[in-house]
C-alpha cells in the first residue's frame, strides 16, 4: 500500500472547524462561567462558582427550571404519545393515510416564529378564534363543566398573558408543532416491522389488537421510541422562538415561561452578563449530554436484537 496523505486534506478542514466551532466554545463557556465577564469590558474577575450558586438558589432561576421542566415534561410525553397514536391510526389506514401524514407534517415545515405569531392571534383574548369559539359554546351542555361555566360567566382565560395558563399554552403550541415529526419517525418504524411477525402473532393466538401491540408493535418500535424520546427531549429543551416572540421582555407573566434558552439569550445577549449566561449554557449542555448518553446506552443495550 502506497502511503498517501490525502486523508489529511480530507479530514483537516472538518477537524479544524469541529474544534473551533464546537469544542472550543464549550471550553470558553466553562471558562467564562466562573467569571463575571461581559462583552466590552476589558478584564473579568474570577468569581468561582458564584454563578452556579445563583442559578441553583435564586428564585428567578428556580422559575427558569420550573418553566423549562414544565414545558419539557408536557411536550415530550404528548408529542411522543400523539406521534405514536397518529402513526398507528394512519398506518392502519394504508394508502388513505397519506393525506393525514401530509397535514400533520405541515407544522414541522413551517417556520415556528411565523406560526407562533399566528397562534398568538388565535389565542388573543378578544379577537382570537379560540375564545370566540369557546363563547359560542356558552349556554349549551358544555356549561356542565364548571371551568367552562366560569369562563362564560366572567371571561375565558387570557391564555398567553395569564400566569396560570401561559406555560401550558406555550406547551400546547410546542406539541402542535412537534408531534408530526415524531409521527413520521414512528411511521418509518412501523413500516420496518416485518409483516410475518404479525402473522406469527396471529397464529400464536394474539387475537386482540392490544395483544398484537404488546407482543410485536411496541417491542419492535423500541429503538424508534428511544430515539424519538431523546430527540423530543433535546428539541423541547431548546424551545426559544415562541417565547421570544410572545414575551420579548422578561419571559412571560411572572416569568412563568422563562425557559433556559431564553434565559441564556436574556442574560448573555440582552443584559451582557456573559458569566451567568455561560453558566446556564454549561448546565444546559450537561442536561442534553446526559440525555443523549442515556439514549446511546439504551441503544447499545439493544443492538444484539438484530
Amino acid at each position, binding site marked *: 500500500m502506497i502511503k498517501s496523505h490525502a486523508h489529511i486534506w480530507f479530514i483537516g478542514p472538518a477537524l479544524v472547524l469541529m474544534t473551533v466551532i464546537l469544542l472550543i466554545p464549550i471550553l470558553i463557556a466553562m471558562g467564562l462561567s466562573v467569571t463575571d465577564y461581559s462583552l466590552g469590558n476589558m478584564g473579568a474577575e474570577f468569581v468561582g462558582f458564584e454563578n452556579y450558586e445563583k442559578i441553583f438558589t435564586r428564585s428567578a432561576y428556580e422559575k427558569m427550571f420550573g418553566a423549562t421542566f414544565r414545558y419539557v415534561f408536557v411536550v415530550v410525553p404528548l408529542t411522543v404519545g400523539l406521534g405514536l397514536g397518529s402513526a398507528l391510526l394512519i398506518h392502519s389506514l394504508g394508502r388513505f393515510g397519506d393525506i393525514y401524514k401530509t397535514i400533520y407534517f405541515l407544522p414541522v415545515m413551517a417556520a415556528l416564529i411565523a406560526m407562533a405569531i399566528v397562534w398568538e392571534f388565535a389565542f388573543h383574548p378578544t379577537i382570537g378564534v379560540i375564545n370566540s369559539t369557546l363563547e359560542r359554546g356558552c349556554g349549551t351542555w358544555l356549561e356542565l363543566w364548571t371551568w367552562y361555566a366560569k369562563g362564560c360567566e366572567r371571561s375565558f382565560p387570557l391564555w398567553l398573558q395569564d400566569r396560570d395558563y401561559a406555560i401550558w399554552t406555550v406547551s400546547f403550541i410546542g406539541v402542535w408543532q412537534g408531534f408530526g415529526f415524531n409521527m413520521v419517525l414512528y411511521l418509518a418504524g412501523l413500516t420496518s416491522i*416485518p409483516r*410475518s*411477525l404479525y*402473522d*406469527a*402473532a*396471529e*397464529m*400464536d*393466538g*394474539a*387475537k386482540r389488537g392490544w*395483544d398484537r401491540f404488546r*407482543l*410485536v408493535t411496541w*417491542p*419492535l418500535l*423500541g429503538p424508534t421510541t428511544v430515539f424519538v424520546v431523546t430527540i423530543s427531549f433535546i428539541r423541547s429543551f431548546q424551545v426559544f422562538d415562541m417565547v421570544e416572540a410572545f414575551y420579548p421582555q422578561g419571559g412571560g407573566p411572572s416569568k412563568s415561561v422563562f425557559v433556559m434558552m431564553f434565559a441564556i439569550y436574556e442574560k448573555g445577549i440582552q443584559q451582557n452578563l456573559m458569566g451567568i449566561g455561560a453558566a446556564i449554557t454549561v448546565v444546559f449542555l450537561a442536561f442534553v449530554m446526559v440525555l443523549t448518553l442515556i439514549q446511546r446506552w439504551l441503544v447499545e443495550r439493544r443492538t*444484539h*436484537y*438484530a
Partner: protein
Amino acid sequence: MSQISLSGIHKSFGSTEVLKGVSLDIEAGEFVTLVGPSGCGKSTLLRILAGLDSADTGDVRIQAQSVTQTRAADRNLAMVFQSYALYPHLSVAENMMTPLKMRELGWAGRLPIVGPLVARRACRDIHARVEAVAETLKITPLLARKPGQLSGGQRQRVALGRAMVRDPVAFLMDEPLSNLDAALRVHMRAELSELHRRLNATFVYVTHDQAEALTMSDRMAVMMQGEILQVGPPDEIYHNPASLAVARFIGSPAINVLPGEKLADGRVVLLGQRLFNVQSGQPRALFIGLRPEHLHLAAEGRFEGMISHRENLGSDLFLHLTLKEMDNPVVIRAHPDQARNVARGHNVRFDLDPAKVLFFEADGQRVTLDGARQLEVAQ
C-alpha cells in the same frame, strides 16, 4: 373424513387471479407438500388454510368443521414461516412460550413479573412443556438466548419448537428450509421427516424445491398458475406425471422432451427411428418425454449426438448431447466408469428404455398409446 379439506378456493389480488378454484383433501397424519414454481399460488393457498388470508370463494374445513369464517388464531394450526418470524426481543424460551401464554393464560397471567405469581401453576406447566420440546429439538442450551444470537439453523429449530409446544391440528410450513445453506437443508429434510414420524401429526409443507417435495412427502400436490395439476405420492408424480408441465417441473436434471409422432399404420417414431408399434389410427404429433436415467450410452444405439457439456456429480455423470435434429440438447445419465473416456466434442450413440417412455399430446396432456407396452420392442 379427512382432517383438512379445501374446496373450490378462488383468490385474486387485484386483476391477477392467484388461485383458480383449488380443492385438496388432506388426511390426518399425512405429510402433504404443495410444490410449484414461485408465483404459482402455493403460499397463498397455505395462508388461506391458516386463516391469514381469506379466499374470495371456496370453503376451508378442518375436522369437518367449516372454518372459512374463523380467524387464524382460532383454527388451532401452527405455522413455521419462511423468515421464521421469531420475536426478536424475546428469548428463545419466551418465543416458544408465546403461543401457550396467549392461549392459556388470562391477561393477568401474561403480565411481566406479576404474571408468574398470579398463575403459578399454569406458568410452571408452560415452562415444563417448553423445556420438553427444547429437549426434543436439542435446543435446551439456547433457551436463554435472543434470536439475533442464533444461526440460521438454530432459528429454524426455534421456529419449529414454537409450533410444537402446542398440540395443533396441523403444522403448516412455508418454505422453512429456503433460508438455510445447501448442506443444512439436506440434513433438515431428514430431520423433518423424522419429526413427522415421531409426532404423527399432519404436515402441510410449501416449497418450490421439488427435491424437498420428493424426499419428504407422503403426497405432493404440484401447483402451477393457481391450479393443482396433480396430487399423488412422489413416486407416482415422478414416474407417472399427468402432464408435460408436471413432468418438466419434477426431476433434476429435467426430463428430455423430444418431438415424435404416431403414424397412421401405428408406428411411433422418434427422430426418424421406430420405437414400437401401437394400434393403427389417426396419425398425430406427440411429445415424447424421456428422463435422463432412461437413456443410456450404447455402441449400437439408434441415436447419435455430440457431447456439448459434461456434468460430473461424482456418483453420476450427465452428458448433454446435441442432436442434429434438435435445438435443445438431450441430457443423458451415464455411469462415470462408462463415460470416462468420452470427452466434449465426441460423437456418441445412445438408446432408450422403451418401457419408460412418456407420451404427451401437443397440449401437454399425458396420453397412453393403446397397446404400446405389449407390442414388440423394435431393435
